[in-house]
């Protein structure tokens, strides 16, 4: 009897193991297929120019055969990291306030507001940026559509994501930590800075990676406020063009080499995100071993 049930359980484990194995393989294959598709579609453009040209030049005139994307790669990374750096202090501050300081009713209200904020479509942020933020910056530092405007809008967009994931990370800490702090007579400030935040580091970083990937992949909002100039910006008030905006801006009318070049910028974007995620992953591992 005992033997029989353990046999079934073993088989059941095997079944579930295989099922989840297959599901995982499907997801991995999907990502692989997307990469393969991007490579295949962008291949024609690499008959004419080398990776070196793509990375070292920032002259983007696809109709006359200039496909430099260095400026756009820089813009993509700068906008995403800028937005993350701007949103993180506010996001984690929000989370700390909600978990440790706010009365219950205020905490619930804030959670709802953040959830609504996370659900606002990006095009709404973009429209607000185009009609309010950009004209305001333009009054002081024309043209207004700039790296700064993009970072501001994207920072606003990912703030709820950072805040909500940080909130979950802090909330999932064992209550024994708080009790130990209380027992040792450590105040809120000491508990948050030296106990809670270090203990929740993994969850916090995971949330930041999520926000970073969202910022790097964001298209519509950035397209409307960044100015879309493919060159390297010389200041934060200069316009920039991200790889995503580049695709959205030109894909509907692109043919031939131009279209292939747009797929190449999609491929570059995928590589950028991959590098950022791997970087964040190693950063996270490193911090754990500390």
């Amino acid at each position, binding site marked *: 009897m005992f033997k029989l049930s353990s046999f079934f359980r073993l088989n059941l484990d095997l079944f579930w193991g295989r099922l989840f194995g297959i599901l995982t393989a499907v997801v991995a294959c999907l990502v692989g297929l997307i990469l393969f598709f991007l490579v295949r579609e962008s291949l024609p453009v690499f008959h004419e120019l080398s990776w070196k040209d793509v990375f070292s030049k920032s002259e983007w*005139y696809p109709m006359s055969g200039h496909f430099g994307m260095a400026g756009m790669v820089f813009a993509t990374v700068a906008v995403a990291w800028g937005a993350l750096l701007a949103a993180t202090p506010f996001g984690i501050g929000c989370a700390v306030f909600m978990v440790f300081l706010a009365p219950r009713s205020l905490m619930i209200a804030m959670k709802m507001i953040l959830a609504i904020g996370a659900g606002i479509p990006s095009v709404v942020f973009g429209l607000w940026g*185009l009609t309010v933020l*950009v*004209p305001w910056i333009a009054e002081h530092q*024309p*043209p207004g559509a700039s790296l700064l405007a993009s970072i501001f809008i994207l920072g606003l967009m990912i703030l709820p994501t950072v805040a909500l994931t940080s909130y979950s990370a802090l909330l999932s800490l064992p209550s024994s930590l708080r009790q130990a702090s209380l027992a040792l007579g450590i105040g809120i400030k000491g508990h948050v800075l030296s106990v809670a935040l270090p203990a929740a580091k993994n969850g916090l970083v995971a949330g930041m990676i999520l926000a970073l990937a969202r910022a790097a992949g964001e298209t519509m909002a950035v*397209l*409307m406020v960044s100015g879309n100039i493919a060159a390297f910006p010389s200041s934060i008030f200069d316009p920039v063009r991200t790889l995503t905006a580049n695709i959205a801006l*030109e894909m509907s009318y692109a043919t031939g080499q131009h279209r292939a070049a747009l797929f190449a910028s999609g491929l570059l974007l995928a590589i950028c995100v991959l590098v950022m995620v791997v970087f964040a992953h190693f950063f996270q591992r490193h911090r754990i071993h500390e």
Partner: protein
Amino acid sequence: MMSRFQKRVGFSFTTVALLFFNAAATAAPLKLVLTGSSTMAPLVSEIAKRFEAKNPDIRVDVQSGGSSRGMSDVRSGMADIGMVSRGLKAEEGDLVPHTIAIDVVGMIIHKKNPVVALTHQQILDIFTGKITNWKAVGGEDRKITVVNKAEGRSTLEIFLSYFKLNNRDIRAQVVVGENQQGIKSVAGNLGAIGYVSLGAAEFEEKNGTAIRLLPLSSLPASAENVRSGKFPMARPLNLITKGTNSDVGRRFIQYSQSSEVRDLVQAQFLFSPQP
């Protein structure tokens, strides 16, 4: 066994086919294929929808892919009608153009900009970065923001060919995609200058958006000047056919040029060739 099955299938196919032909005898299912300009495809698709509703026996298939595709498809017989968003050249005399709309581009500045007109040379100098302050053309002391269009857009092509510019010579501060984005970018910046489809600009100007259309070569951007062919920054949108044309093709072209589709032309911010 197998052959009997095949026979039976063959028989039923014949029956169905006979039934179909009986039904179709009164209304032959005709198909019309149009290929070409991506600027024209949205308008022609709308026209085709209305044409199909009035002629249930005709199917119209509209595919974009560029004016040159439309041209070669008509020549090779792959398409009945081509969509070409420019006038035909002298060496293209084997094809017949039928203009269904005119695509016009107008220069816009912010409503509060005191500058009332710019010369051809001044616009050239502004877009190539030789003039960077409105003071140099009689305006306020304010930095100029040049709003250009993204590569591949038809408005960019019209603008470049009129001013005989290469896109690499343009020193823009903002690049936009759709007309709406261009209009909002100019309306939100006192020092901005840009160009968009004239129909869209007229519509927004009338509805109180903070933009103003500039005259070109001292001609105001008006519908009369467009139709008479005087307004310079414009191009015809043509349906093209080979010399001979089927009855259905002729009917579709006539319909596309008739007053019944005028509202569709205007909805795309284009101008009808006839008043």
